[in-house]
Every structure is written in structure tokens, then in C-alpha cells.
């Protein structure tokens, strides 16, 4: 099932709203919902939820490098030959992940990471449709990755809710790129996808 790009457009706006309203929360995650908060899911969770989460992580991990390559190739020089300078995964406000934490803590961190990545992918997809309208395979890959992330986000939330009664996790998003110049948009997208490739490998291994 494909979700229209409007959702991601909304997600692209969300960081701006966060910056406006939660100036201090844009870069740092907020605490999770207390244990005794009301938790209700719209649909019953799948019985084999963790397996699904693992499979989705593996799926993302298996396609992350291809997406990264597609992206920096589409940006043209100097990106393909200066990955260390332009696409290094030094995203400062990226949500942390601790592989040795409890399952609950790992799921919460995973939720924040996927939420962050989902929003950033929305920005990248929006930018690339304007900047590289003919890079159809890149658009397709970005959309496919975003689709899997949405499903993963839903599953993680379901797991948190059903097992740990966590109904809400405060999340943070990356910087909005809409006001940046084109070269900066390309660079930020490349850095984000480089980070994504790095993080998703670690997360997939942790689960």
C-alpha cells in the first residue's frame, strides 16, 4: 500500500513547526510517555511483530547502500568523488541508539530514529523531485524506503504499546532544507543517507 506524498510533505513541514513551537526540542528527544499512560492501538498488533520488525530492518539495511549510491550519483560531481567531504555521516542531531539497552529502550530509540529518518527522507524526496526530476529510479527508491519506514514505525509503535504500554514517544527531526541553497540541499541529503546507511546496519544487527 502506498501512502501519498502529502504525508511526507506534512512531515517536511513538521520540523518547522517543531522549531517554532519547541525550540529546545528540535535537536533533543523528549522523554517517553509514562508507563501508566493510556495506550490503545487502532488495530491489533501482529502476533509475530518482532520478526516483522527484524525483517523490515533487514530490508532497509539491504537497500540502504544502493539508495546512497543512487543519490550521490544523481547529484553529479563533486559528490561521487568526494564522499568523505560531502557525504560524511556527521549528522549532529541524529537520535542515539544503544545496542546493549533493553528491548524497550532499543524500540524507543528505534522509533525516534525511524521518525527522524522518515521526515528527512520526505525532505530529500521533495527536493530531488525538483532538483532531479528525471532521476526516476532515485525517486522510486526513496519512496520505497519511506514506505518500509512507515510500516516499521507502525510496528514499533504497536510493539511498544502492546508490550510496554508506551503510547507516545517524543521525537525530533532534522533541519528543514527548504530554505537552503541547492548545493546545500544536495549535501545535507547525502549526509543523511550516509548516516542512514551507517545507522541502519547497526540497528538491524541489534535486533
Amino acid at each position, binding site marked *: 500500500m502506498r501512502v501519498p506524498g502529502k504525508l511526507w510533505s506534512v512531515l517536511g513541514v513538521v520540523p518547522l513547526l517543531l522549531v517554532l513551537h519547541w525550540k529546545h526540542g528540535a535537536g533533543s528527544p523528549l522523554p517517553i510517555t509514562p508507563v501508566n499512560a493510556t495506550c490503545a492501538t487502532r488495530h491489533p498488533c501482529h502476533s509475530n511483530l518482532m520478526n516483522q520488525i527484524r525483517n523490515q530492518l533487514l530490508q532497509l539495511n539491504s537497500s540502504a547502500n544502493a539508495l546512497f549510491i543512487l543519490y550521490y550519483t544523481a547529484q553529479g560531481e563533486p559528490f561521487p568523488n568526494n564522499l568523505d567531504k560531502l557525504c560524511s555521516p556527521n549528522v549532529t542531531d541524529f537520535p542515539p541508539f544503544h545496542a546493549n539497552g533493553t528491548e524497550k529502550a532499543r524500540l524507543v530509540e528505534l522509533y525516534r530514529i525511524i521518525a527522524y529518518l522518515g521526515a528527512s527522507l520526505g525532505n530529500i524526496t521533495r527536493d530531488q523531485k525538483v532538483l*532531479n526530476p528525471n532521476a526516476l529510479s532515485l525517486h522510486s527508491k526513496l519512496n520505497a524506503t519511506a514506505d518500509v519506514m512507515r510500516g516499521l514505525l507502525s510496528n514499533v509503535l504497536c510493539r511498544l504499546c502492546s508490550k510496554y504500554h508506551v503510547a507516545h514517544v517524543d521525537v525530533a527531526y532534522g533541519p528543514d532544507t527548504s530554505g537552503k541553497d*541547492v548545493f546545500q540541499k544536495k549535501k545535507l541529503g547525502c549526509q543523511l543517507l550516509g548516516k542512514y546507511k551507517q545507522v541502519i546496519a547497526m540497528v538491524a544487527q541489534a535486533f
Partner: protein
Amino acid sequence: MALFAVFQTSFLLALLSLRAYQSEVLVEPLPLTPESLNVSIDSAHQYLNLQWSVHSLAYYQELKMLFQIQISRMKTSNVIWVGNYSTVVKRDPVLHWSWKSELPLECATHFVRMRSRVDDAKIPEPRFWSNWSSWKEADAQKSLGRDPLFLFPKDKLVEEGSNVTICYMSRNQQDNISCYLEGQQIHGEQLDSNVSAFKLNKVSFIRKTGTNIFCKVDQKDVIKGIVLFVSKVLEEPKDFSCETQDFKTLTCTWDPGTDTSLPKRSSQSYTLFESFSGKKILCEHKNSCNWQVDSDSQEMYNFTLVAENALGNRSVSVLFSLTHRVHPKTPYNLFLKNVSGTKATVTWKVHPIGNYSTLLCQLDLLGEGNVIQQHNVSIKENGEYLLSELEPDTEYMARVRCADANHFWKWSGSISQKFITAEAAPSEALDVWRNVKSVSGRPTVTLFWKPLSKLHANGKILSYNVTVENLDRPSGLEVHSVPATANGTELTLDQDSYQIHVTALNSAGPSPASVIVVSGDPGNEEVEEERVNGTEDGFSVSWKPQSGKAIGYVVEWCDHPQDLPCDLQWKNLSSNTTSTVISSGAFRPGVRYNFRIYEISTERMAYLLEKKAGYLKELAPSDNPQVVVSNLTSHSFTLSWKDYSTDSQLGFIQGYYVYLRSKAEKECHPGFKKATLPDKSACCQHRIDNPEQKTFVMENLQPESVYEFLVTPYTSAGSGPLDAFTKVTTPDEYSHILIRIILPMIVCVLLIMITCYLKSQWMKEKCYPDIPDPYKSNVLSLIKSKENPHLTIMNVSDCVPDAIEVIHKPEGSKIQFLGASKSLTETEFTKPAYLYLLPAEKNYSGPGPCICFENLTYNEAAADSGSCGHFPVTPEALPGQPGPLTSPENLLKALEKNYMNSLGETAAGEASLNYVSQLASQMSGDKDSLPANPPEPVLCSEYKMQMAIPLGLASPPPAENSGLSSTTPLDQSEHYR
């Protein structure tokens, strides 16, 4: 005087006050110095925006002023631009002016100052510049942050062909920075210790997604980049025009040219402005715009179309009268009525344009895509036209379009309708030709005809009717129907003359008949064939009229003479024609085409006039004839190629070249000349000019020499291939003599040998019989010659045994004998063999002489024994014989041994049979050769040896039995007594 003084004082005071006023007005411009100058930076467009004010326009509502502006870069003394700005200044105005910088403003601090001057005619000269304002600084670097490197301008959009200046600014002067565009390093001008600028001249469009330009600091992980967007040049709209279809809407169209859209930059937009009405609309489409015509019937329109994008605009205008821009709508309801074979009526309708407008409609009739007829019809709403002169059974298309009849502007769209006219009877007779040949003695006529063209068929041909009428014996008509798919038929006739009518039938009726008369007599076929030359256009054939009563001529040929059928073609020619050019796309070089020219008599009978043969282009022969070598002698041989046909070659065979080469002979024979082959080897060439001469005798050759020859034909285009020479070796001079002697000898010897073999038995009997005939013995003649005339040879019939006495008959002997010699027939041993040899006649009662054989030929020892003994031979003696006794030699040896055994063993009394004779013969012969111990005969005083040969050992055939027995019956007159 006092009054004068008062008047003078008043005048001076008035004058003073007037001057004071005037001086006050004249010095007023000095306070018009620009004040409150403010400079800001528009980074997006690289503008320096200036804002200032002018005060103290005390006495004027407005004043035209001129402002001089100075702009410096980096430092105030570095003035890079000076310019004037003229404007009308109103009371207490705030003035604005912008300056576009080529260099990105972020890369350098700019300084601005200005001064002003009244430039209004209301103020008399002289006019003075005001003082300069103070320098105002515009510095964008302060807000850049602390990044080590900056590159400007960001996301610059320029039009293709324009110039762009790029700059970078480094925080560290020590950094070594290099910049690249599309992978190529670019070099710029250093403006400052940490600022460099790159000027890109006439940038070209590379891609819509922009071009990355980046700079990197060597030895550091710092890369900064910008994207430069170069758009296509905005073109002026082409073919801009407006028209109306209904006087309600004007539709303006144009060709927008190249799309200038870029990412984040939309394509150019179009605005339509009409100057008379002052109305303006933004067009929704890139190539068209609809303008609503006002009801007050504005007659003239002046439209301006403006194309605009982020970088500029282009415009184009058109002025026209509305009534001259009428483009009617496409007609509708086009129908064909009353369609016959040659006529049809077309009707159509148009959309009305106003109440008084008349439309001019153009009706086209198209056949096979071409306009055949064109008619103009003026109508209001309904159109109708009768099309005539149509061809039957033909598909046409009627097409209608209309335009304003008063002011032609454009044709409307077209409406068309296909229709097919009805069929009519074929309008022309078939082109018929015939070929008469004799099959099994009966003339067979093959009729050919060419299918009617679509123009003349007037419909689908259903069949052909062939009507045969006997002219010699009127007996009614014979009608044959031939299917439409056939282009001919075959008729078997007799020797009479026949008139044949051929017609083509379609649904509307038959065509006019084509008449041809044929006769069983083929006429004069013995016409000498002439040659005709082919050209690129074909064959030019001419002939001489014979009778002078011809109604026409027919030239006949085959397009593919080497095929069967040969695709017979013919061409009809009028009676006054004596030449024509026969051309066909099937004609090929190297093919012989035969043309036959017939004269058509008034009776419509064809008579052969001439025969022609020719080649479109003669080619050199491709093959050489198969040459047979005969009559090979030591000095000559004959070449023959009689199977070579000169008629089916690639050109007219004019003769042959005979090539001869030999290693033994360096000189050519008489009649030959030296020639060089393509492989540069030399040989001798003889030319035969008669193509029908197909033999050639090579003479004057050397015996026992190898000659190579080649026979190749030649045409006007050249000779055949010179590749395959044939070797011939001449024999020596005596070989034929030897052959004449030795061969008959060999034959004779063979004959003799064969004869001897076939008559071997006869020869044996005659020359060396197993048992010689005593009468033929040389000994006999020798004896006779030795004065012994009474000496004769005993006849066996005279030797009558008295009896056969069986002394002992042991069973084992028989078995032993049979076991020893299995090759003998057992049944023949049931009786003792010797019983056959002895004429034991039971009834023989008379006394007979005692027979004594004297065989001097092979048993001289016995004969010379001088005594006649009785030595019975038993089968028991035979098993001692080694080997089979089948050959005569073995047999004789066996007999000889038996004989010797019998000499030695019979005395022991083991014999089972005794021959008893009561006759005694006279002793004769040489007693010296007698054995030492001759056996003593028991009963007969003088016995001679008599051998009994078992029948199986001798194995005489029945015929030889008689032969064998012939040795025993002796002539009575010559036997011994």
C-alpha cells in the same frame, strides 16, 4: 527735490528687496544635497538598493534633479562605477535606486555616495553640483558566519550566453583553494587576500538540473559548492495570429519556442494585451489564448503578446480587423447521393457566420490520393454539387473546406467522404495474342491476353468468354468460359481456320470482343534470324512490310527466355509502323532475347515476318566448352567441342581461341601467335573465327611431349575464362607399331589358351591320354617299320576269360578298403571293380585266346618281362597308398606300386581273385627288363600282366568308361595270338 529723493529711495529699496529675493532663490539649490542615504543588499538578485531623500524644495512642488552616484569596492578610493540618475523630485520625497552588481555582493564590501544637481528648466543657469554625501558601506560578509570558505552566488539563474562572475571568500589567507566547473578547474582573479573572482563568459546551457561549481581547500576536508542554473534564451513568440470562428471569441495562437523552465523556476508565461480596449489577460496555455469579443462589435484590434520569465521578457504585436480574421468551422454532414457509374451528388452543411456572411467552399474530388476535380461553391448554410465525369467502379474521396467569401483568411478544416462509383461494362477489348504449336499432330492454340486496366475494366472482371468459330466448315460456335484469374487458355483445333472472339465480363456486361484468326498451318517459319542490338532503352526492332495489306504488326518475345514458361510478351503496332523499341524491366545483360515480328492481315491472321535475336548487353562467356581429345598421335591430336551450343551463351559467339602451351616448345606453331595469360605466363593462341567450327587439329607436335591446351569462346565482350588448361602427352613414334604387333599376338595367345582350356579333355585325349591308344602309338609304327607286318594289337573283345574264380572274399577287406579311401563312392565298391573291366560274359563258351596286354607306352617293365603272369590285384593293396589317388600321377604311382606289390605279395597266396585265361600269347619284348622273380602263372603257361583298376580310383566318367573300355576292345585283326 525731496520728492525725487523719496522716490529714488523707494526705488532703491524695492530694487534691493527684489535682488534680495532673487539671490535667495538662486542660492536655494545648495541645500538639495542627498540626505539620509541608506544602502542595503539584495543577495537574491545581487542588487545594491539605495534610498535617500531630498529636503527643502521650498518653492517648487516638483523639480527635476540629476543625481550622480559613485560606487567603490573594497575601499572608497576604488571607485568601480559612476553613473547619473535623473528623476523628478517632489516635495519631501524618498528616492530609490538600485544597482546590480556583477560580482556577488557577499564577496566584497561596497561603498556608495552621491551628489545632486537641479536639472530643471525652471531654474536658470548656472547650476551647481551639491556636495557629495558621505560614503555608505554595504557589507554582507558580517552575516556569513565562521565557515572557512564561502562560494557565491548561490543558485544563480542566468540566460544562456550571458556572463557570470563567481567568487569565493576564504577565512584563512593561507589556504590553497581550487575551484572546478564540470570537472575542469577554473582560474580566477584575486580581488583581495582572501577573495577571488571567476568570470564565466557566455555560459552555455548544459542541463536543466543545473551545474555544480565547487571549490575545495587543499589538505582540508572542506568543499563548498553552488549550483548555477543556465536557462535557454527566451524567444520571441513566432507565428502570432488571432482569428475568430464565430465573432464571439478571438483565438490567438503562437509558437512559444524553447521552454525555459528550470527546477524551481517555472517556464515563461504569456500575457495578451489589447491596446484599443486596454484589456489584458494572462494566458492559460503556452501557445494559445482566447479573447472574448465585446458585443459592441469592436472592429480593429491591436494585440501585444508578452512572453516573460524570471530573466526577462519578449513581446510581439499584431493589428487587424476582426472581419478579416474569420476562420470558419469545419463543414459537417457530408454525404454522397445518387452515385452511378459516372456521376454522384455531394451535399454538406456549414456553421453560419453572422447573418450576411457568405462562405466559399472548395469541393475536391480525389482519386488515389490526387485531386482530380476541384469546384468552388458559394453557400450560406447548405452546400450541394453534382460530380460528373467519374470512372465506373472507382473509389473516390470528396473533400470540402470553406472560407469567408468576402475576406479570405484561412480555409476551415476539411471534411471528407469516400465513395465508389457503380460498375459499367468493360470499355475496351482485350489485348489478345496467340501461340500456335502442334501437339500430337494437332494444332494447339494457346491464347494469351493482358488483363484490362482498372480504367477499362470498369468493375471486377468475373470471367472471360472465348468463342471459337470454324471459318472453313461453319458448324456453330464453341464457347469457353475462362476464370477471371486466368490470363489465357489453350484450345486444340484441327487444320481449319478459326476465328476466335475473346471478351471480358463483369457484372455490368461484356467488353468489346477481341478477334483473332488462327490456322492449323503455322505458315512460313523458316525465316532467317537477324541480329538486333540492345541499348539501355531496350531493343530497337525494325522490319520490312511484305504484303502491304497489314492492319498491324505484333512483336513477340519472352521476358525470361531461359525459363518455362518463358513469360511471353507481345506488343501491338499499327500498320504504318515499321520499327519500335522493345523495352522491359525484365531484360538483363547476357541473356539472348528472340523477337518475332508478325504481320496481321486483314483477315486478322498473323504471319511471321522476321526473327530477331539480340542481347541487351553482350557479356563474355562464363564457361568454356567441354573439349574432347581424339586421334592422338605422336605429332598431332584433334580437339572437338561439338556439344557446345552457341545459342545459349552470354553473347553472340564469334569464334574460339585455342591456346596451346608446352615446356618443350618455345616457338608457336604456324597459325598460332604468342599470347600472355592473366597469370603472366606465355602461350600460343590460335583464333577460330567461325563459331560453328567446333573441331581443331593440333599438328606439328613433338613426340613424347606434354602439351596443355584450352579452348575458349569469345564474344564481342571478351573471351571465356583462361584458367583450366588440359594436359595431353603425345606418344612416341613407335609405340603404335608395337601395339599393332604385340596386341594381335597377345590376342592369339589368349585365344589359344582359352581354346585349350575349353578343349582340354579333347586335347588330353589327343595328345596325352591316360591310356594311350595303341593304334596311335609311335611304337606301333616303329614296329611296323621293322618288318613285322603281322604284329598287331589285340582287341579286348578277343580276350575272353574263361571264368572268374572267387578264391577268397574276406569281408574285412572291403571294409578296410572303404575306410582307407573315403573319396570313393561306396556303392561302386559293392562290386569288385575289375568285374567291369573284364568282359565276363556268361554265355561266352568258345575258347578264346589268352590275352596278354602289352603296353609299351607306360608299362614297359611289365611288357618286357617276357612272361605273361596273372596278378590279381585286391583292394587290400590300396590302403598302403599314401594320399588320395585322384590325380593321374598318383593314380599311376598307385598302380605301379600295386603292381610291384602284386609281384611280391601275390606269391604269398593272399590274392582273392585270379584271372584265368585259357589263351596263351606269344612272348615278345626285351627279356632283359624282366623282373628277377617273375611270378609263376598257375594255369596259363604264358600270361602277361593284366591290371584291374578299381572303378573308384580311376573315377572314369561314363564317357570315359567308354574311352577306357576302348582300350580293351582291340581290333581283331591286330591282336596277338
